[in-house]
């Protein structure tokens, strides 16, 4: 019992001492804080002046006069606002002041949030050593978020290793992140084949395969339409749904037959995407299967089918009106609701 008492006194005293030290630290920070804000302000003024007069030496003098952390932080935000020649000159000024080396150190030694930010800054600064530092982070960093950030940064500087290797380095757990969608969307067109290969790999994580298909559909266009048409038959519902979304964007000569088949898929997500694709492509010849889909057990599918019909214009609306006027059923209710959608009269 005495131990309970003694420990409590010790722990309470210790916590109070730590808190008092933190308060003292804060007092010091408050005093320094205003100085840092002034430095940041003077740097931003110099950066704005640089965009007007392009006086690189004057900017470098200011960059070197403020603490590196302030320069990197404010500089990164400013660089990301610029484009073209102005941007390149500013990046050169930062490189000449040796700031990327400090960012490189942050990528190695900072905490998780700092390391992710450092990867982004290295991509923006495009220094000589950026690729080596980023490759090292992709290879060795213990955090998957940092490894993904490094991969995105490498993609931005045009030095991403082959996709198979990149994904292996990111690790299986990291292959669930939506950040990979961003990585795939940044892929240069000359490397789209890698995305296609990955999307077609049955042993890859379905989420990444679907993300690769989405990225190809956004940027690759009709070139991959045949691939999307094949991928609709993929055993993974996630991949099939992504392929249908893609087909809805690119279109395909066999789209009507493919979509009708997909509308009978066991997975509701696939059926809904098939209906959406039919609507997006304006395939009014699919009005009959879409009308059938309006009796689907899943609301999302019924709603997608009704919306697709509505997107066909008068012909589709006529079908909806006929269903709405029929006997009370799931499809009848859905049709009525869709027809009524919008401001009440």
């Amino acid at each position, binding site marked *: 019992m005495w131990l309970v008492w003694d420990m409590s006194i010790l722990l309470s005293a210790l916590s109070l001492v730590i808190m008092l030290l933190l*308060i003292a630290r*804060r007092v010091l920070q408050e005093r320094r804080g205003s100085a840092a804000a002034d430095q940041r302000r003077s740097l931003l003024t110099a950066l704005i002046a640089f965009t007007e007069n392009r006086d690189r030496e004057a900017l470098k003098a200011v960059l070197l006069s403020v603490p590196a952390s302030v320069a990197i932080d404010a500089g990164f935000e400013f660089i990301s606002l610029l484009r073209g020649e102005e941007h390149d000159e500013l990046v050169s000024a930062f490189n000449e002041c040796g700031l990327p080396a400090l960012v490189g150190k942050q990528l190695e030694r900072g905490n998780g949030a700092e390391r992710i930010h450092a990867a982004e800054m290295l991509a923006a600064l495009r220094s000589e050593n950026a690729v080596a530092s980023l490759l090292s982070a992709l290879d060795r960093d213990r955090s998957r978020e940092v490894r993904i950030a490094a991969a995105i940064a490498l993609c931005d500087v045009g030095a991403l290793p082959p996709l198979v290797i990149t994904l292996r380095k990111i690790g299986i757990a990291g292959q669930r992140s939506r950040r990979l969608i961003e990585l795939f969307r940044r892929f240069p067109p000359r490397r789209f084949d890698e995305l296609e290969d990955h999307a077609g790999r049955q042993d890859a994580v379905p989420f990444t395969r679907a993300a690769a298909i989405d990225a190809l559909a956004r940027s690759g266009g009709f070139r991959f339409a045949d691939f999307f048409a094949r991928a609709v038959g993929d055993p993974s519902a996630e991949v099939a749904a992504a392929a249908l979304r893609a087909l809805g964007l690119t279109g395909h000569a066999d789209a009507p037959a493919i979509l009708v088949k997909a509308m009978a898929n066991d997975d509701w997500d696939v059926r809904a995407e098939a209906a959406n694709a039919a609507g997006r492509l304006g395939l009014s010849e699919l009005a009959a299967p879409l009308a059938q889909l309006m009796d689907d057990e899943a609301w999302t599918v019924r709603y997608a089918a009704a919306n697709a019909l509505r997107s066909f214009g008068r012909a589709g609306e006529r079908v909806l009106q006929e269903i709405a006027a029929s006997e009370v059923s799931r499809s009848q209710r859905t049709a009525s609701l869709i027809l009524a959608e919008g401001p*009440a009269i």
Partner: protein
Amino acid sequence: MMVADWSHGVVLAASILSWFIIGAGLAQTAVYLLQLIVAAYALSRRPPVARSALLWHRYGDVAPPIALLVPAYNEEVNVVESVHSMLALEYPNFEVIVINDGSKDQTLQRLIEGFKLVKFHRPYEEAVTHKPIRGLYSSPMTERLFVIDKENGGKADAQNAGINVCRAPLFCVIDGDSILEPDALMRAAQPFIDDPERTIAVGGTIRIANGSRIEAGRVREIHLPTRLVALFQVVEYLRAFLMARLAWSRINTLMLVSGAFGLFRRAEVVAVGGFTKGSMGEDMDLVIKLHRYMRDTKRKYSIQFVPEPVCWTEAPETLSVLGRQRTRWQRGALECFFRYRSMLFNPRYGRVGFLGFGHILVVDVLGPVAEVLGYVLIPAFWLLGILSAEYLLAFTSLIFTYGVCVSVCSLVLEEAELQRFPRARDLAVLTAVAVIENFGYRQLNNFWRVKGWWQFLRGDQGWGEMTRTGLGGAKK
């Protein structure tokens, strides 16, 4: 002989009772200290991203759509300003759905006037049950806003109506009188971006806005409350969020995502039937249902707490209102514990059954009763000479000195990692509050919790009136 037997029996009973009280206190303290260690580890592993501009740059393109569900009952004072601030949130893809839960005041009228609302038909799935909807409204001023006018059915019922009408895969519940920081959704959505398959719910931090400068539905300057009752709650909330929830989240045993600010994946919430109507603790109830459903269906999942997204709320400033709130929270916790008691120590539910429910048992079910019993019995037994001073000191240390340690350590966590209080003076004030709250306020709180126990046993279902002055009335 008989007198000796009798006195021996009394001493034995007193000793057993004292051991129970001290044992419960020890267990509770051990849980708190463990939480502190885990929370400190979690915070050090995942320090916050300082600026929201960075988040937008990083996640803006891949952030999933979110529907913000805002139940409003008699909120005419704040509702328009609150909705304006929600519409100004920094998130690429979201809609705000205000659910007027049969308010008796001018809540709906204020919304109609404030946003020029017109009646609107929007097809929706009747996936979860709720009281009938009288009308849906949209605003020509913004495509992001929808208002549901429905018959009164309580907060859970209103949220269920919002779940049905919303179309986003994620929804965020928030109280009508709360203020979300502009980047709160972006920060809360981060786990859904990093691990979209497994993340099913995310909770953020609730902070107390009393005393802060609020303009146009935004907290412009953070100040501490001027009233002691609200100051105590600042420390309490730090302890609850930064210590307890962060720790439980780290080991995927989070049992509560606050109804004042929580982000959920719609599909799973629909699968468990939405919020349980008539529940005193509908937020805890939902999280427990989600745990049970995911465990029953053997799916991998995570329910997380992220400390950085902040929702500001108004704390009660009078003891009577605070007392009603706390007795209600206690009834809510007990209701959930007994409703899902089959999960307690059930191997089928793994760490949720052992750690999550074990924690509720120690802290919410046994804790207040043991502590209040201790206040009366331990000193009495000592005065009667039944217990030695050792026991008295042990009890005192568990209540007061460990209490100081836990509260101050929560503040240490806040200052070491987040630094949300802008001035050193605020920290000094909060440190003092963290000490003195253990001498009076803690006891009062436990009294309210025991009262909650009593009301629970009597089957009292009243919510009690929650008088608010409105955040617009905070320091300007």
